[in-house]
């Protein structure tokens, strides 16, 4: 389903939960809604579903305005955060509910249940009640139930929140695969950046009721449009006076410019590890943490604190050690503008031609 939202607003009493949200979603796309708690993600989903009516703004499916359409008529599958399974119905009855309501013939319902039970890997659990299932199984029943009436749009509110990391991983690849196979437009809310980056075609960052940015995971990551997005994605460090850092002196020329630096923009090591020492700062290692597959290193340059990762293959660093730090790039912003800058000194200042 092609979805378009224009100028969406919603207040709860005095509180503006959603303000002026606009986006378009192409058919068959998987969209990840990401943002801090209380940002308005659930409210947006509920308005799309028709469970909440917007104060102003239009919602269009296939170019047709659906504001007045009740939820029953919208053809949307909704997977609730806590699943909301019908607790007095078996797995099969839960899946059948939407079909019975739509008066499908008995034989077709049976067929569809079998199909979905197969698809969601719930074979053998048809006669169980929700309280006899594990969290992951309940999750899949919720999927199956939402998918049964063949919705054109699937809304998922933190579908994996209550599931442990490993099964979560399996489930989201499974979800991605299934959505690709069925070609359903889907929007899912998550608090897990990795999850969004891994499975979504596009990510929408929602903060304080506003849509901060919409784009592919790569765009969001590499070209954040607002300071909020830059600081929210990844593990950024905010640097008030970015001009202090070697290679970013130009930035200081513009008043009030601040910088955000991500761990992956930073390299630390001993002098012999760098080809271009002139671009590096010297700092001291303040902490190191073992992260399983790498070291997390915290360094201090003057009063600036940066974090970065270091391969386990490289010589180990120790707290208190003097090291060289190369900041490859930074995300800079001021009141009016924001941009990404490379370290100026990295480009050899005095190229020698032989």
């Amino acid at each position, binding site marked *: 389903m092609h979805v378009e939202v224009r100028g969406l607003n919603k207040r709860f009493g005095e509180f503006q939960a959603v303000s002026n949200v606009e986006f378009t979603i192409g058919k068959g796309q998987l969209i990840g809604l990401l943002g801090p708690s209380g940002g308005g993600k659930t409210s947006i989903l509920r308005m799309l*579903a028709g*469970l909440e009516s917007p104060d102003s703004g239009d919602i269009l499916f296939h170019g047709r305005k659906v504001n007045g359409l009740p*939820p*029953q*008529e919208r053809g*949307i*599958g*909704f997977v*609730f955060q*806590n699943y*909301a*399974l*019908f*607790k*007095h119905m078996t797995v099969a009855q839960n899946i059948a*509910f*939407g079909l019975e*309501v*739509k008066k499908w013939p008995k034989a077709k319902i049976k067929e569809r249940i079998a199909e979905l039970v197969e698809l969601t890997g719930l074979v053998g659990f048809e006669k169980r009640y929700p309280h006899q299932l594990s969290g992951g199984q309940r999750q899949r029943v919720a999927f199956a*139930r*939402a998918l*049964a*009436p063949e919705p054109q749009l699937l809304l998922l509110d933190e579908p994996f929140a209550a599931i442990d990391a490993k099964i979560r991983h399996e489930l989201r690849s499974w979800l991605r695969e299934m959505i690709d196979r069925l070609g359903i437009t889907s929007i899912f809310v998550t608090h897990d950046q990795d999850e969004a980056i891994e499975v979504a075609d596009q990510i929408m960052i929602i903060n304080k009721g506003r849509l901060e940015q919409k784009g592919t995971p790569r765009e969001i990551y590499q070209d954040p449009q607002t300071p909020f997005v830059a600081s929210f994605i990844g593990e950024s460090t905010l640097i008030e006076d970015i001009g202090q850092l070697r290679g970013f002196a130009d930035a200081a020329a513009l008043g009030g410019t601040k910088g955000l630096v991500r761990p992956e923009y930073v390299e630390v090591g001993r002098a012999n590890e760098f080809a271009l020492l002139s671009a590096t700062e010297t700092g001291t290692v303040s902490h190191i943490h073992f992260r399983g597959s790498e070291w997390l290193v915290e360094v201090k340059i003057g009063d600036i604190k940066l974090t970065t990762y270091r391969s386990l293959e490289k010589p180990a660093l120790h707290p208190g050690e003097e090291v060289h730090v190369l900041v490859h790039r930074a995300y800079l912003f001021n009141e009016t503008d924001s941009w990404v800058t490379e370290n100026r000194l990295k480009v050899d200042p005095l190229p020698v031609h032989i």
Partner: protein
Amino acid sequence: MRKLWISATYVIFALLLGAPIVRIATGAWADGWSGFASGITRPEAQHALLMTGMIVVIVTVINTLFGVMLALYLVRAPWLGKQLRRVLNSIVDLPFAVSPVIGGLMIVLLLGPDTVIGSLLSRSGIDIVYALPGMVIATLFVTFPLIIREVMPVLQEIGDQQEEAAQMLGAYPWTIFWRVTWPSIQWSVVYGVVLTVARTLGEFGAVLVVSGNILFRTQTATTLVYQDVENFNLTAANAVALVLAAGSVALLLFMEWAKSRRAR
């Protein structure tokens, strides 16, 4: 020490609850089977039991319908507004706070033959006070909170997510109520109905005030017992009381069963 307390509790309850029933039973059989039989087959007893039965049926039906509906509105209707719902919520508890006799008196004062509404109604041939409608209204007043107070907490506890899920699957309110909400609240409703029936069977004060206790017209089982006692017709009083007590015991057993079903 603990054993002593437990046995003391049993003794007190046996004295409080068991002794009166035994006393009623022996009283009813004081003149043997014939005394008991004539006590409950006398025309006035038959009529009184019939009145009580009619009130039980009417009140239970009305109370169940409106009780469930009001509980749903109080819990699930945000459009009613917070303030209004709070007011309604306190009104529901009013009958618990007001003595049934006062409740009956209010009905007489509002709808009695000397009032505007009462005289208007009686001119068009409808008697409220000193007739069945008034007795039903009085009993409704007394039993009004019972079902609502049983159902509301359950509705609050299950939340509205299952109902919203059903909505997303295409179900409209009527279907949602019967297929999703009802299975969750049914045993609480049954429990509330049992309480209503029990309360209606035993209601005395409100009914006495509204009915005027007119023989063969507005006399119920409880007011008949009262009159029999006044007339020193103890065997007959015990016989009718025993029928009421038997009804209560049956209800009690049924209630236990309903409770165990609800707990699932």
